[in-house]
């Protein structure tokens, strides 16, 4: 059958059925990408620093929000801090009761000016208090995907 021969019906052509694998790539931006890659590969946090304004950005930013200067000073920051505030979630997105309440906390980091909202675990809800010292628990290296979920949760120190 030449290329010029017109195919009248799909069965006239040789065909295979199956799935064609495709891959997509998502990037969280230049600074975000470096931040997530560091978590994935080394299990630690990176921040950018504006020396003029004395601000350590975590999660990192490429520009200082105070003086607009480009930030190229990268530092490792500790993955520990304290509970600024927390909530105990009792319902799922469908308003059904969760089998076990989950704790979500806003953790401010000791070595940076920012913080993260993430799960808190290895503790009962009634034992959590504001100001409690916590540290990040990273997933096993082969389970990390390069996202915020590579942190499994924070736990009391």
């Amino acid at each position, binding site marked *: 059958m030449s290329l010029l021969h017109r195919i009248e019906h799909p069965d006239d052509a040789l065909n295979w059925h199956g799935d064609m694998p495709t891959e997509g790539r998502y990037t969280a931006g230049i600074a975000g990408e470096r931040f997530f890659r560091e978590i994935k590969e080394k299990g630690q946090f990176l921040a950018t620093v504006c020396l003029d304004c004395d601000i350590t950005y975590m999660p990192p930013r490429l520009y200082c929000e105070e003086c607009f200067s480009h930030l190229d000073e990268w530092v490792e920051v500790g993955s520990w801090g304290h509970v600024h505030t927390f909530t105990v979630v009792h319902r799922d997105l469908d308003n059904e009761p969760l089998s076990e309440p989950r704790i979500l906390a806003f953790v401010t980091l000791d070595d940076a000016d920012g913080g993260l909202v993430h799960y808190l675990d290895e503790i009962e809800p009634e034992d959590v208090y504001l100001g409690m010292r916590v540290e990040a628990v990273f997933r096993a290296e082969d389970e990390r995907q390069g996202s915020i*979920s590579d942190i499994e949760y924070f736990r009391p120190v």
Partner: protein
Amino acid sequence: MRHPSEVDCAAATEIMREVAVIGVGQTAVGEHWGISLRHLALEAVQAAMADAGVVRADALYVGNMLSGELEGQEHLGALVADFAGLRGIEAFKIEAACGSGAAAVRMGYVAVAGELADIVVVVGVEKMTDTLGPDTTAALAMAADADYEAAHGASFVTLNALLMRRYMHQYGYAHQDFAPFAVNAHQNALNNPYAMFRFPVSCEKFSRARMISEPINLLDSSPICDGAAAVVLAPLCEARDPSMTTVRVAASAVGTDTLAVHDRKDPLVLAGAELSSQRAYEGAGVRPADIDLFELHDAFTIMAALSLEAAGFADRGRGLALALDGEIGINGRIPVTTMGGLKARGHPVGATGVYQIVEVVQQLRGLAGENQVPNARIGMAQNIGGSGATVITHILEQS
């Protein structure tokens, strides 16, 4: 580099036209399974245009957040224009999360003030109940930071719960102290035929409500619902209906803040709302004490408290005290949510900001019925997108 605020804009403001709201319309807020998105919008547009006494417009701006995600329908500008008999005019959808409605009003204001259009119809419309709860809640979470907040399941309920717990800790309040906001909203909704929840709530009922995400319970929260509201804007000089009080847009202002809550220096300060309010006061030449009623964004009770503080009605940590002192009722120092607010009128997200404007106009026209604020001359509406990342404030005044 010259800072933008240093640029002299005085010359520009001199050529701006004064803008009036010449018509308002709304549908009942609720679960409208039998009515499509376009039909909801149409009902509100028709009501507003009939109220204004106009049959044509130069532009249509549609405030909406979730139509693409929940209804599989984008391109609402042309869609609504087509179905409202306005085919051919300029029409766009405006999106700023839960602030979409007021953002659309803002764009309408800009067009009329800037002499780019004479008559602008603005409609806010949202349908949230055609999808299952998890899908709707996940779609709403798209207004948070997708990489850092929403990725591991934080929703707006949990983000507000974090703020509420911190507020209670920092300023020494108990959960039941937030009750006045819900009680007041439900009380006012009783007399609003368009409100979703027309039943009273007591302090006891508030305290016993089902816990969702501590300390936020069901009665701290606004509902998922459907609705549409519309306004017609025109130059003030052409808006002299002798049978009706003329309502002027004294100020329209926007402020923004970090998208993610964790990036804020103090999460209990709504910096975007402070900026937005301040710009509105400057634009209108008024102070908080001049405001007769405040339609604030009570998506959760904690947001009502923080809004009162950011807008200058209470010092930091005292927004709740204002409510506890009974100052937020119809006859209080600063009446809020006078027709039920987000809590009880309902919170169809992209429509909410327009409902607020409609309700302020009702008050300034003296047509708020049982809920009329005595001698209401200046009213303020503030619509918030996300956890305070986009804040749009309008001040309306009798003219």
